[in-house]
């Protein structure tokens, strides 16, 4: 009688443990390496044929991007690998890899061939969505929330300015003011709605008020900038939202716009102008750094903390603002600023950009730890008590991360909150 024999399928594990027995090493060499039987330039051309994605063709496999890719540092990723995988049979538009990029732009910073993942990823994702390919459910939810409610959190539009009740200072709504203002403050979705992020909005309101700045917010008329949704592939949604926002911005007279979040800065400063928006837009750190001499005497109370600052990708690499946040932190009496090894141009990504904010469960299946966890560990290793941030995405991500990595002793605060503390002495 013939013996039934089932062939083992090939595996490529570096470390394999089966039933507690470590079979790594030469045992696993019994399994054959998969042979490449075909190269698939057509899968590269499928990407390079998309508008704005031409530069994908440029990769000559130097791999400079891989070492600085925040996703590769916690997994197996990087633009070079995406190109090579496309050449050897992987359709990026159907691969989980499509959703892992945070558009942090560190690859582009070092790329000798200017392979621009910031343009390639949105184009490929948009095509995948159009083709009806797999899209992570969490991301779908964020898209739907934005479309339905005007913000990715799915909160009602009428509650967008509810937070001003807790500000303790007047926060004028531009519509009610019915006069031109110096500063239109675009608060942003997370500082408007998220219980943890409201603290930064409140702090900003107090600081603007103490400085005597003539400002107002859009209140219930404010909607999400939707640029992160664009980077995640929803160009149609972005176009709809940006059209509404530009109309709203244009309804009122103001001299400058100040934004709480770097993603909104990037949206209004770099992307909206392509759709007809004109106006000067500043991140709050840049804006407040201008008032540094007026601020200093107001920062009356010592805040004895060792602080490390995390550069948001969209404030730093995308918009080259590295100094203003540091100047503000250094102006606070008692603050000792220490740097993490990866900072400024080479700052590590929190994982929230490019839609990563809404895909933690999905990406968690493809990386060994969240990017925010990695960064929280880096922050803890400096001996800092506080991880200071300047992006609303980061506060909750890092508060979660310090807990999950056993670094609860490190607090996470927006620079606005630190400034407010020093002013009020809490």
């Amino acid at each position, binding site marked *: 009688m013939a013996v039934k024999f089932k062939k083992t399928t090939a595996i490529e594990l570096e470390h394999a443990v089966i039933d507690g027995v470590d079979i790594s090493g030469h045992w696993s060499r019994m399994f054959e390496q998969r042979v490449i039987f075909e190269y698939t*330039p057509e899968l590269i051309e499928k990407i*390079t044929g998309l508008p704005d994605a031409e530069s994908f*063709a*440029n990769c*000559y496999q130097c791999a400079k991007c891989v070492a600085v890719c925040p996703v590769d540092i916690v997994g197996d990723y990087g633009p070079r690998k995406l190109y090579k995988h496309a*050449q050897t049979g992987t359709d990026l538009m159907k691969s989980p890899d499509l959703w892992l990029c945070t558009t942090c732009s560190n690859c582009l910073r070092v790329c000798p061939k200017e392979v621009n993942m910031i343009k390639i990823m949105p184009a490929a994702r948009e095509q995948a969505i159009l083709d009806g390919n797999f899209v992570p459910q969490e991301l779908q939810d964020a898209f739907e929330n934005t479309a339905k409610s005007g913000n990715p959190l799915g909160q009602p539009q009428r509650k967008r300015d509810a937070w001003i009740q807790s500000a303790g200072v007047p926060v004028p709504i531009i519509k009610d003011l019915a006069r031109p203002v110096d500063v239109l403050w675009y608060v942003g979705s997370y500082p408007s709605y998220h219980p943890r992020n409201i603290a930064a909005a409140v702090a900003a309101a107090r600081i603007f008020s103490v400085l005597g700045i003539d400002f107002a917010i859009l209140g219930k008329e404010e909607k999400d900038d939707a640029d992160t949704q664009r980077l995640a592939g929803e160009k149609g949604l972005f176009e709809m939202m940006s059209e509404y926002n530009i109309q709203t911005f244009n309804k009122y007279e103001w001299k400058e716009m100040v934004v709480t979040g770097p993603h909104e800065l990037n949206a209004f400063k770099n992307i909206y102008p392509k759709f007809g928006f004109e106006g000067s837009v500043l991140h709050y750190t840049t804006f407040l750094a201008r008032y540094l001499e007026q601020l200093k005497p107001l920062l009356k109370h010592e805040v004895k903390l060792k602080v490390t600052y995390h550069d948001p990708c969209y404030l730093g690499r995308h918009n080259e603002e590295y100094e203003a946040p540091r100047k503000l932190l250094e102006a606070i009496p008692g603050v000792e600023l220490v740097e993490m090894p990866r900072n400024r141009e080479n700052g590590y990504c929190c994982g929230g950009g490019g839609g990563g904010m809404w895909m933690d469960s999905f990406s968690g299946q493809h990386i060994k730890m969240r990017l925010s966890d990695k960064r929280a560990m880096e922050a803890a290793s400096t001996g800092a008590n506080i991880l200071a941030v300047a992006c609303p995405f980061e506060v909750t991500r890092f508060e979660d991360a310090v807990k999950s990595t056993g670094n609860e002793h490190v607090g996470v605060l927006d620079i606005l909150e630190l400034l407010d503390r020093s002013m009020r002495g809490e």
Partner: protein
Amino acid sequence: MTSGKILIIGGGPAGMEAARCVAELGGEAIVIEKRGRLGGTPDSERYAKLTHHWRDASEAMEELASAVRNSANVEVKYLAEVKGFSGSDGDFTVEIEADGKAETHNVGAVIVATGFQHFDPGRATQYYNYYSFADVITISDLEKMLKENKVVRPSNGETPKRIAFIQCVGSRDRQIGNEYCSKVCCGVASKQAIELREQISDSKVFIFYIDMRMYGYWEPEIYWPAQEKYKVNFVKGVISEVLPKGNQLLIRGEDTTMSRPMEVVMDLVVLSVGMEPSAGTRAVAQQLGIKQNKYGFVEAGGTSGIDPVSTSRPGIFVAGAASGPSDLDDSFAQAGLAAARAVASVRRVMA
């Protein structure tokens, strides 16, 4: 008797440029060429386009050749070769046979411009099967087909749709004896890959390499456009076996970027064969008594190491691929320098 004449051996790019420069400097030159016409390897191997500026090779070579032919200061001897050589710097006696007739000339200096020949792929240690499979060809075979704008699979005359270049055939190889890099093959293969994509728009073209050596401007002029614009596929990992598969060819190697074996089917395999000293270079070096290096090229650089056109004998200079792998830019530059040195040399002895 000292002579002001300069003998130039070889009527290829380096020899022609040397003759033109000697004439421009007011010197007198005799060019001896073994073929019945000027132009050298670009002409005899029917090069299609040159790597710089994509100029038609025949047109560019003819431009040089006519300058040489029309120069009052240059005499060209066709179907000619050196038969005997004696004397010293400033006073050499050279016996030649030109078109069946024996001649003797007195010259003051010599420029050796005898060039290279392509590596014979039959000598490769890998199983490339150049002499067994019709569809395994070399870059020079392909160049001729590109010139005619008719690239076919020699086995059946059909247009190839899947074409692979294999780099470093006969170069950088201790066993074969050619330890040097042949310098031009990466650029030539990439140039030909572009021409293939232009001529056969639905083809897939692959270049399998150890490392791409696209020095200087070849990087932005050839390599980058090949990949970015013409979608040529560059795969790191060279092929070590070509096997028959149906009426196609199975190439086997390792994709080193992926650390995975590869076995891919091709219609046409092009061997990027490197450069070796030509038979003429070897013979002339012997007759003139100038040192050759271990690979058979004329040893250049002299004792100073900063004179790339001097040889081991005063009054004898070398230019172009006779002294080692060289592209046309290098050859022209060396030819100009050799001409200047030779003119200076004869003026010194005549003074």
